[in-house]
């Protein structure tokens, strides 16, 4: 892209919060989150109408019905249109996906009152009635429990012990059939973000995609399908092409419905300014996303349409990524600027309107999910900067404007990720940190551009493709040309340590879940314990891989494939005749497995405490320690204090960092030693845990690091135990980057909390910027800064009403602090305040 001439002062002059956006945002702030039912009802209606058709077609037709018949609206003052629901803040549900959960919630009246400390969602009484009917229909039509049956058949009943809530050796969405769920088990297990609006498709228009699909169809019909002579593959391809065409046509109609509505509203309004805007909106919606955008406004509108339809298609909370917004939009912006058709200020306001639209979607927090994920987050991540296909700094004027929009809009989403590299200017980095400080919480986050690209290059991917990636989902990332679709299953490492300490038995359930690796009280060296632990990890890793194969084979085989997703990646999916999740995307390497090994810092601190207290200092015996753990420290507070004072990861102390590095590298080796069962390639690892550390912690008893039973584990992969890092931020960064933890890993975040006083002058910002530089130079992957005063946080806990705008980043998310469950609030408060 072109050389960037902007500077921070010019960008700061922008007024994103124009009168229009102030008004729209205020409406949003004052709106109640309301459950939106229309799409669910339309889906069910369509499903009844398509009985007997191949599932992919049924899926595409249901999607099309939603787009053609759902209520649409254009809010007063909006410049960018296209809503997920008809409410200013609407929560989309799909009864087909989880009827029991929805029914339970309706019966408890949970939609009508505060359903937990973290979310309040309302429902219209008539909608409640319709939703109830819908849920009841699906409960009567629940599909067979095929995933669990397959797992049982392969591994026996005892296999399920590994996934019990009380044990949770395996944890994650891709673990087991949820008996409360209806259709689409595989969809429900998906994590890590899916391809959203894609630059290539926006630039070419959906009519082009339709034409390519039609041509391919024509070729099949005229010349026959040549897919290695496979009849099934030819049939597959036929239905996929049909699904692509149905989906794209429906999206175009959805846009045109908005054009009609805008024109109608234009006729009605007496305000000439608004009339002109509505006429412009009508022209935009007539044009995109069917045809290539002609200017910046149309391009932003196209991004919005493709983003919202991906959300509309998804059956449940779907992590639809926005991608490299500055790269997608810059050619349009640059051309408009050159031709004097737009000002920077106008562009900023349009982006502001886009920003707010993404925040209209509420993620319905059901009773079952409240502790699982960051509430309110649908993870529409925006990525900026990085290098382009020629390896040059891709930062452009829009990269700056995006940050300024984020700073002024002060919305928890979209989260912004900066792809950091060495050619990024200091001015930009300092500006990004200023935005981070003013924004208040962890936004933007910084990703290591070189590492991101290198990981793909190491898998044999061409540079032009490998360099085109963006942050997606929670702590994940995607190639622009290949949706990754991860089935994340996490090995709960601290749980495995607990099992090791009990010679294969899980003390929480009394079940023998692991191997008999020996009575640890007879061990004479810490190395014996390391070996025993790693043996257990190996044992569970083997089980994990087998489990994963069965889970995904049954899941994929029974779930619909998406014509929409195939359309987004059409240049590969169409010739192959496969949807992205079946291997249709350009590269299979990012398609499948992510194996999580989160909790390594808990394990390392625990092993360090044992080494220190039992073997080196001999202050206590292993038996005494085990007893204290069993009793959850009751009456053994002095032992707990000893454990808490033992060396802790995050202080640049080799005593414990050596253990951390050894265990991290060994477990990584173990997990990588088994190829992905579908592709035969090395899996990606996922060390991060955005909020999963809370859930996993519930299943684990007291740990030798001093943690009490049931407490959350440490978050985000390489973050130290809360409050344990006492040597300042450089020590934490050093601890986290002594060995390449991040190279084989996707979800590895490093959360750092700084007080505002560390960022209040330019000089200090330069120093924080240098923390990023050193972190990246040492091979770190993802770093983000949370910035708060302790007083602010404590007060926010007491008086949430006064701190509605207080933002906090948990793992890879942004969320409002007052929306977090108390445990997460406490954890953020406890996270060390580096310097006062």
């Amino acid at each position, binding site marked *: 892209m072109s050389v960037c001439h902007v500077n921070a002062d010019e960008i700061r002059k922008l007024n994103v919060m124009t009168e229009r956006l102030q008004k729209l945002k205020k409406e949003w702030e004052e709106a109640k989150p309301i459950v939106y039912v229309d799409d669910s009802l339309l889906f069910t209606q369509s499903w009844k109408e398509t009985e007997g058709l191949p599932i992919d077609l049924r899926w595409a037709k249901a999607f099309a019905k939603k787009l053609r018949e759902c209520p649409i609206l254009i809010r007063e003052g909006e410049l960018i249109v296209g809503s997920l629901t008809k409410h200013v803040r609407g929560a989309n549900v799909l009864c087909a996906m989880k009827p029991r959960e929805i029914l339970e919630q309706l019966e408890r009246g949970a939609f009508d009152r505060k359903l937990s400390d973290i979310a309040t969602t309302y429902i219209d009484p008539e909608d409640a009635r319709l939703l109830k009917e819908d849920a009841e229909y699906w409960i009567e039509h629940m599909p067979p429990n095929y995933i669990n049956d397959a797992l049982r058949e392969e591994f026996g009943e005892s296999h399920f012990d590994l996934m019990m809530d009380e044990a949770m050796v395996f944890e994650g969405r891709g673990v087991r059939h949820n008996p409360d769920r209806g259709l689409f088990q595989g969809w429900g297990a998906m994590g890590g973000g899916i391809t959203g609006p894609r630059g290539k498709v926006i630039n070419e228009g959906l009519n082009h995609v339709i034409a390519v699909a039609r041509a391919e169809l024509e070729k099949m019909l005229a010349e026959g399908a040549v897919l290695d002579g496979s009849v099934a593959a030819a049939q597959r391809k036929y239905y996929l092409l049909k699904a692509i065409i149905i989906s794209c046509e429906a999206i175009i109609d959805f846009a045109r419905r908005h054009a009609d509505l805008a024109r109608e509203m234009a006729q009605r309004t007496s305000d000439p300014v608004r009339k002109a805007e509505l006429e412009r909106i009508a022209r935009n919606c007539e044009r995109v996303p069917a045809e290539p955008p002609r200017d910046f406004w149309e391009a932003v509108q196209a991004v919005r349409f493709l983003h919202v339809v991906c959300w509309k298609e998804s059956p449940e909370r779907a992590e639809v990524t926005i991608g490299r917004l500055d790269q997608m939009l810059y050619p349009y912006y640059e051309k408009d600027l050159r031709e004097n058709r737009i000002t920077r200020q106008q562009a900023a306001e349009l982006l502001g309107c886009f920003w707010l639209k993404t925040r209209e979607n509420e993620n319905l927090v059901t009773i079952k999910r409240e502790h699982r994920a960051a509430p309110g987050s649908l993870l529409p991540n925006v990525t900026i900067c990085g290098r382009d296909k020629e390896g040059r700094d891709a930062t452009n004027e829009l990269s700056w404007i995006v940050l300024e929009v984020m700073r002024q809009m002060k919305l928890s989403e979209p989260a912004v990720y900066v792809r950091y590299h060495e050619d990024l200017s200091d001015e930009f980095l300092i500006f990004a940190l200023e935005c981070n400080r003013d924004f208040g919480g962890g936004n933007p986050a910084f990703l290591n551009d070189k590492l991101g690209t290198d990981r793909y290059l190491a898998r044999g991917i061409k540079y032009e493709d490998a360099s085109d990636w963006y942050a997606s989902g929670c702590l994940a990332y995607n190639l622009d040309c290949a949706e990754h679709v991860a089935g994340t299953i996490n090995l709960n490492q601290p749980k495995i340590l607990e099992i090791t300490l009990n010679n294969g038995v899980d003390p929480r359930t009394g079940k023998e879940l692991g191997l008999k690796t020996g009575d640890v009280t007879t061990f004479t060296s810490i190395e014996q314990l390391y070996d025993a632990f790693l043996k257990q990890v190996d044992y569970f890793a083997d089980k994990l891989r087998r489990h994963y194969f069965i889970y995904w084979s049954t899941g994929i085989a029974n779930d619909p494939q998406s014509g929409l997703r195939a359309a987004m990646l059409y240049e590969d999916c169409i010739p192959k005749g496969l949807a992205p999740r079946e291997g249709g995307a350009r590269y299979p390497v990012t398609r499948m497995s992510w194996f999580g090994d989160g909790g390594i810092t808990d394990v390392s601190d625990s092993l360090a405490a044992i080494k220190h207290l039992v073997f080196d200092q001999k202050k206590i015996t292993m038996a005494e320690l085990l007893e204290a753990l069993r009793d959850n420290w009751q009456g053994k*507070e*002095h032992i707990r*204090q*000893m454990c808490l*004072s033992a060396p802790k990861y995050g202080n*640049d102390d080799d005593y414990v960092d050596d253990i951390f590095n050894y265990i991290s590298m060994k477990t990584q080796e173990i997990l990588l030693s088994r190829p992905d069962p579908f592709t035969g390639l090395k899996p990606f690892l996922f060390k991060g845990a955005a909020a999963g550390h809370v859930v996993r912690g519930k299943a684990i008893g007291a740990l030798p690091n001093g943690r009490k039973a049931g407490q959350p584990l440490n978050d985000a992969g390489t973050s130290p135990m809360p409050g344990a890092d006492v*040597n*300042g*931020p*450089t*020590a934490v960064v*050093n601890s986290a980057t002594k060995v390449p933890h991040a190279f084989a890993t996707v979800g590895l975040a490093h959360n750092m909390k700084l007080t505002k*006083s*560390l960022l*209040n*002058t330019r*000089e*200090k910002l*330069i*120093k924080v910027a*240098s*923390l990023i*530089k*050193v972190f990246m*130079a*040492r091979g770190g992957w993802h770093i983000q800064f949370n910035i708060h005063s302790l007083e602010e946080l404590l007060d926010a806990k007491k008086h949430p009403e006064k701190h509605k705008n207080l933002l906090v980043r948990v793992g890879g998310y942004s969320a409002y602090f007052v929306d977090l469950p108390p445990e997460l609030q406490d954890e953020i408060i406890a996270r060390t305040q*580096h*310097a*006062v």
Partner: protein
Amino acid sequence: MESIKGMVFNIQRYSIDDGPGIRTTVFLKGCPLRCLWCSNPESQNPCPEIAHRESSCKRCGRCVEVCPVQAISLTEGAIRIDRNLCDNCGECVSECPHEALKIFGKEMTVDEVFAVVRKDKDYYKVTGGGVTVSGGEPLAQAEFAAALLKRCQEAGIHTCLDTSGYGAQPDLEKILPYTALVLFDLKHMDPVLHREYTGCDNELVLRNLELVVKNGTPLIIRIPLIPGHNDSDEQLAAFARVAAEVAKGAPVNIMPYHRYGTGKYKMLDLPYQLDDLKPPAEERLQRAKEIFNSFGLECEVKI
């Protein structure tokens, strides 16, 4: 020379206000001055000292049991340390399960300190940072300070000395060859008030300032700005004249008075004498800055 030991009470990494860039500040224990506003009371006494943090204490009495000289008692639900009996042996510190007791001051070799300092070399390189030897008063441990700074300088690490200027000239001369930058404190220009506020005369301080200037070592004048003590316009002008004339226009850093150290006085059973003093108002800081600027001096307020 590396076997020389120093009495260190803190090594603070990511120091961002003690010289350029990201620095590691090595605080040496022991100071001849007793500034009323001192925010590091643990820095004054040259020997190790036991400190007790009330808020962490669970009053379990473990320390009372283990104290070999019966200096600790548990009375009226609170731990009391008889400072006359306590010989700072540290037995109680290692036995306290709640980290309520700690010992300030640890004897360390140059090698040991250097091992910590060098850990952040990557950050020094990126920011032009390095090591700062502070105190207490580094001149009171001149041999050690010189050896440490030399060691760092040889390793290519930028060196900085933070001094009150109160020390023997030969001691200063030992350190200066290994010092790239001196942060030189001025507390008051009036000898009588200097004595009243710090316990010592300022004549030696000013002579040492001349020595640093003569030696040609770059220098920054640091002034702790204490409301009602040294922040009058006249006093600020007096500081400015010294900075302009004696220190040949060296830049000035203003260090506004703060009360972060008061908790440590309680932990050490030491009286804090400026109980009612508030940090300087923003206008006063600006006024101070203006005065220094009017003398053609660069001036930065460190907040």
